[in-house]
């Protein structure tokens, strides 16, 4: 057996016996799917409950607009007394929304002037927005209805005020609406790749030094590059397993779990797309391993290495999170950035788009080149005398 193989099998057996690395592999794999599942259940419940429930609406100055109040009551609104200080109550989150009907409402209304009402809401509180939106829609509905009646009373057809009628055609399928949730998936996959092998790599590098077994190991007749490569390869089954487990869990969430009951639509990701996602993620497995190897070599202790390596997934997270808000078109330049290109490609696969093979190629090659360079750095670091002491 060559040196690489000897090191590989020893580290594989050694780490398979480590419960900690097995649990962390599984735990990191289920983290992303777990979070998405939780979001689907919680947010799904939130939406459906809000929509079916009668709207509880605190109204101040009810006596100023009996007709509006009557209209609201007919539309399944439960009117409540407004708090003494509506703005403060909304700001503190005591109530979602308050409708204020000023004293001069009746006067303006009677005179045919625009009568003003106020809707007090806090747009920074997402959970309050559905109710605020419902209140606003109802008031606008009332305004349109009253306006139309006034025109009719003057013998004018209400349609003449609609110079332009806007009709929004929503082409989003239930699938693409669900992409709000799916857009988080690429990042969770990157995270699974970056965390899956971390425990194993720290154990093999910083851990080996801390257990005082590095110095005797280095005295054996084996080149340092063989040692680095053997250890790196031994971490790959763990990170790959994390990736596979993560994909399987996502598939279960989207294809098996009754998402429809919560979201009103079913998500689905087909097996071929999952397979393609897996293949696109594979180069990142090398990248993550090489990067962690370099970092763990710098650090003095197991604990120090763990601190750094656990923060590592946040770096690919930043462009990934930007991706969720800023739609960046997949370009060759984006593909050059390891982890960023992969997240874009995964996004495309989730949307069922056809991938540009040049993009796939650039992403794979650039990621593997960066990984290769990092492996060379790790080998260089292992060749230095300081490797014994763990100094910079």
């Amino acid at each position, binding site marked *: 057996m060559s040196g690489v193989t000897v090191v590989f099998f020893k580290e594989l057996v050694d780490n398979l016996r480590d419960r900690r690395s097995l649990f962390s592999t599984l735990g990191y794999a289920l983290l992303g799917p777990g979070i998405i599942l939780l979001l689907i259940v919680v947010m799904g419940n939130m939406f459906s409950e809000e929509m079916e429930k009668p709207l509880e609406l605190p109204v101040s100055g009810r006596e100023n607009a009996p007709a509006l109040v009557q209209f609201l009551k007919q539309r399944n609104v439960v009117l409540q007394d407004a708090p003494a200080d509506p703005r403060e109550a909304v700001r503190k989150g005591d109530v979602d929304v308050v409708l204020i009907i000023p004293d001069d409402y009746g006067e303006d209304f009677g005179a045919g002037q625009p009568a003003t009402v106020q809707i007090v809401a806090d747009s920074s509180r997402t959970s309050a927005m559905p109710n605020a939106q419902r209140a606003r829609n109802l008031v606008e509905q009332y305004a349109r209805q009253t306006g139309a009646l006034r025109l009719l009373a003057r013998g004018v057809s209400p349609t003449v005020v609609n110079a332009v009628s806007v009709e929004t055609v929503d082409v989003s399928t239930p699938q693409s609406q669900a992409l709000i949730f799916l857009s988080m998936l690429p990042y969770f996959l990157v995270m699974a790749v970056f965390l899956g092998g971390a425990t194993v790599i720290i154990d093999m590098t910083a851990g080996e030094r801390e257990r005082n*077994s590095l110095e005797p190991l280095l005295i054996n*007749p084996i080149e340092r590059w063989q040692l680095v490569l053997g250890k790196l390869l031994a971490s790959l089954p763990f990170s790959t397993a994390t990736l596979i487990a993560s994909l399987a869990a996502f598939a279960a969430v989207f294809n098996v779990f009754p998402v429809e009951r919560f979201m009103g639509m079913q998500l689905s990701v087909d097996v071929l797309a999952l397979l393609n996602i897996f293949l696109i993620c594979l180069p990142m497995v090398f990248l993550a391993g090489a990067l962690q190897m370099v970092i763990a070599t710098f650090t003095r202790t197991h604990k120090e290495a763990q601190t750094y390596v656990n923060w590592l997934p946040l770096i690919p997270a930043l462009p990934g999170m930007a991706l969720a808000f800023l739609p960046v078109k997949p370009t060759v330049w984006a593909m050059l950035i390891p982890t960023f290109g992969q997240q874009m490609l995964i996004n495309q696969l989730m949307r069922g788009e056809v991938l540009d093979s040049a993009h796939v190629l650039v992403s794979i090659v650039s990621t593997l080149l960066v990984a290769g360079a990092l492996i060379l750095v790790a080998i260089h670091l292992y060749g230095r005398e300081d490797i014994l002491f763990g100094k910079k």
Partner: protein
Amino acid sequence: MIQVTNLHKSFGEVHALRGVTFHAPDGQITGLLGPNGAGKTTTLRVLYTLLAPDVGDAFVDGFDVRAQALQVQERIGALPDARGVYPRLTARENVRYYGRLHGLDNAALEPRIDALIELLDMHDIAERRADGFSTGERLKVAIARAIIHDPANVLLDEPTNGLDVMSTRAMRDTIRRLRDEGRCVLFSSHIMQEVAVLCDHIVIIARGKVVGAGSPDELRRIANTDDLEDAFVDIIGTEEGLE
């Protein structure tokens, strides 16, 4: 056979070695004696190719530790200062790993492991995972894996550190046996009595330099005293660090 000539090594401001020269022949036990921090461990690390000397040469069986590291490593069995074993592997698996790193195939390796288990009296720990081994048990594993490839040169850094009386005696027997098999045994210690009972040849190191060398008798003659301990103190010039 080990030949060391005029080794110098610095770590930043610290001048660890300032000209170490000695010769350790086959079939003899050579002791490196010196107070803590004298440069014993640094000298040994140069010999097992982990540190490159700034100045000077070191040869093992004629191979240069700098230019021919792999050949040197094939010819030495080392028990370094750090002697951690893998806690999740059994004693036998720990030893087997080193045998494979030396390129031994299974046919040669397994009988050799069995022989070492017999030799070092490791029957009760051979199939147990090393997690929870006592210092003595860990040391046996470390010795076994160091000599799994039957090296002609054995380098031991403070081999009896932390051992109880019985284990120390067993360790001394092992060292003598290695010598009787014709190997070159080089071991470091800061304990004078130990060096005195074991060594055929003593090299005294202090502050990074060799300050005296010879058989126990020769050292007594040089220092002009019958008491070996007085001889050491006289040669080193201080009692600091000796037991």
